[in-house]
């Protein structure tokens, strides 16, 4: 581990990134006025709250977002990972993005630093592949837990540097890590959980938000990963942001809770371990955006590693009425297997107007729902 930590030391990453090209402040797009105040606070008003989310008038109403579709390749040198993240960021910034969204499991590339990992049998089930090493007790969760110190220092160093040097907000995607805190829930208090967590970095470079995945894929449960039990909304000069992770967007409850807390832009990092099918892929953020009016930004991890195929199309979604073709899509990557950076402009004023006119929340039969939920779950 000490060797791995030295191989991935922050100084090395910082020095590497320092040699790269960055736009000067004068090159920034007109949206950059949104970013001058990097203050971020947890936001908790209800949707029916009449108050403006940005009482000091920081928000200009338009945000350019970039959804990144990145290839999962195991790296043997940490700088390969850093270079990939830099290139995606540079492309998104060149396209004028204020807010960048990286995919789920966005440090799985670093598994390649473990000796012998690429020799594992190509099994769609990572637990089975690990069992072939002779230790049937070893789970994928154990491997991610072991690698956590490395994952943390590489991920945080890389995205702090990129957010600061480019002067943009970056949601760096999620990483599977050991969380050395306690999770208390109805089953009791558990220590040192392995969780799938995403982080938001401000233009100052500071990590200003965290979200632990609250709904797991069955395969993640098999890996020994635990889910979080909270959903957060962060108030930024760009708007009220939330970033539930992948499967969280399968459940309408996630978006209802987040929108009720004030979320207007919901970022959804994904890594879908399945061959691509348009309709199956549609079952995430797109329908959630239609039933709970917010903007949705989905990033995707693609590629094939250890016999597991990942597919998906990064996209930016909006209520049907706010999209030029009436299809709920503002931008989407064309190929579910290739890398891409797609950008779109989000008009928050239009969203607020749509919410007011559609009256979706006002017409929700709360009395009916309260009669049945949450007891029915």
């Amino acid at each position, binding site marked *: 581990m000490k060797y791995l930590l030295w191989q991935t030391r922050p100084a090395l990453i910082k020095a590497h990134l320092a040699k790269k090209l960055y736009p000067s402040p004068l090159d920034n797009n007109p949206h950059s006025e949104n970013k001058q105040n990097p203050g971020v606070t947890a936001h908790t008003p*209800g949707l029916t709250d009449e108050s403006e989310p940005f009482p000091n008038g920081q928000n200009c109403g338009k945000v350019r977002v970039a959804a990144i579709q990145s290839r999962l390749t195991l790296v043997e040198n940490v700088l390969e990972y850093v270079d990939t993240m830099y290139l995606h960021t540079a492309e998104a910034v060149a396209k004028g993005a204020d807010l960048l969204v990286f995919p789920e499991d966005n440090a799985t590339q670093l598994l390649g630093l473990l000796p012998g990992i690429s020799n594992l049998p190509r099994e769609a089930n990572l637990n089975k592949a690990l069992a072939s090493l002779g230790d049937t007790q070893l789970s994928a969760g154990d491997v991610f837990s072991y690698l956590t110190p490395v994952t943390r220092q590489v991920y945080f160093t890389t995205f702090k540097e990129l957010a600061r040097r480019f002067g943009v907000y970056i949601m760096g995607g999620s990483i599977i890590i050991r969380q050395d805190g306690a999770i208390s829930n*109805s089953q009791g208090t558990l220590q040192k959980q392995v969780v799938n967590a995403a982080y938001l970095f401000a233009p100052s470079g500071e990590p200003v938000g965290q979200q632990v995945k609250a709904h797991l894929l069955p395969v993640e449960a098999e890996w020994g990963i635990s889910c979080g039990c909270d959903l957060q909304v962060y108030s930024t000069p760009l708007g009220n942001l939330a970033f539930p992770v992948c499967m969280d967007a399968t459940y309408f409850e996630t978006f*209802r809770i987040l929108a009720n807390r004030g979320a207007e832009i919901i970022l959804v990092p994904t890594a879908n371990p399945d061959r691509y099918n348009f309709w199956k892929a549609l079952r995430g953020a797109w329908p959630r955006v239609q039933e709970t009016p917010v903007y949705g930004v989905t990033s995707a991890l693609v590629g094939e590693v250890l016999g597991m195929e990942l597919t998906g199309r990064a996209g930016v979604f909006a209520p049907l009425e706010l999209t030029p073709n009436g299809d709920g899509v503002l931008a989407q990557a064309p190929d579910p297997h290739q890398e891409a950076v797609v950008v779109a402009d989000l008009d928050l004023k239009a969203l607020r107007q749509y919410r007011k006119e559609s009256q979706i929340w006002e017409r929700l039969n709360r009395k009916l729902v309260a009669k049945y939920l949450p007891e029915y779950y």
Partner: protein
Amino acid sequence: MGDYKLCCFQTGMFGDSRENLLAEVRKQLTRARDEGGKLVIYPQFWALNLVCPEEPADGIKLLKYLQKQGKTVRQTFLDTCGKLAGEFGLYLLPGSLLEVTDISSTETYDSIRFQNRAFLFSPQGQVILEQAQTHFSSWEEELLFGSVAPGNPYCTSGECPDPPNLSLHQGYTWPVKLCLEPGDSLQVVNTPLGVLGLVLGTDAWYPEVSRILSLQGAQVLLALTARPQPYNPWRQVAGMWQQVQQNQVYCAEACLVGNFLGKSFAGQSSLYGPCEITPGETGVLSQAESATEPEKVEARISLEMLGEIRSRYPLREHFNIPLYRRELGRVYSFEPEDKSILCLE
């Protein structure tokens, strides 16, 4: 009966006399039964065909007629449809019916409440499930009440405040307050065809409705919809298609087409299932070719396959119940059940 055929009739309103309409319905039911259908559904509002002698000129005239007929409307409907279901030995969901649920008076105005209700008939001709629509959209209000000035004398909250300036609706010589009253309950019924639930109109776009029904055990949702033109297929995807996906149920959606009360309606009646158990993993078992013409849509469904996909991909096992118990109270305005639940510290 784990494997059977469902039929949807995509159809319009008031095309013919009641006698001719019943003759046409008998032909449709004969065909459905002879081709192995077990359950037949018609679109939103279609039941009004069976109780109104002719098409009313507008929503207010329709409501006034229903008000005048009183309880005979329901009785006519129940008698007619009970006989049809029994005659053909089919489960029958003959669209929905607007009903007067309450009339009251003050010194200055009358108050009339309506609900949109659907009734599912057994092959024995009995009503085995009754469901009132629980959410209304602005276009549904406009369809029935017309465009009304601010301070409008109608509401859908079920708790109508007294508006300051009551206007006279055409056809009424006395001020009235019209209420489209949302239903306050959701039910399912266990049948040999599986556990069935009904979704009416705008309820298709409120995920809470299908979620509650599926948590009550629904395996098949029967949806009656009517959307005014212009037609956008993505709106249907955002409705029952996606409710089916997130609840792992089957659904038959019957769409109203043609003209009704001065508006033109369009939709593609469809039979949906979870993507994994439909051809091409599209989530669609069968769909009308046209969004504007009458058509019959049918497909076989298998409750066994539904059970398999639910166990192979157990979405419900991953509900985050502690989160919902703590947070949904804020969304739906009730006290959270367990305030003591903590999270990452």
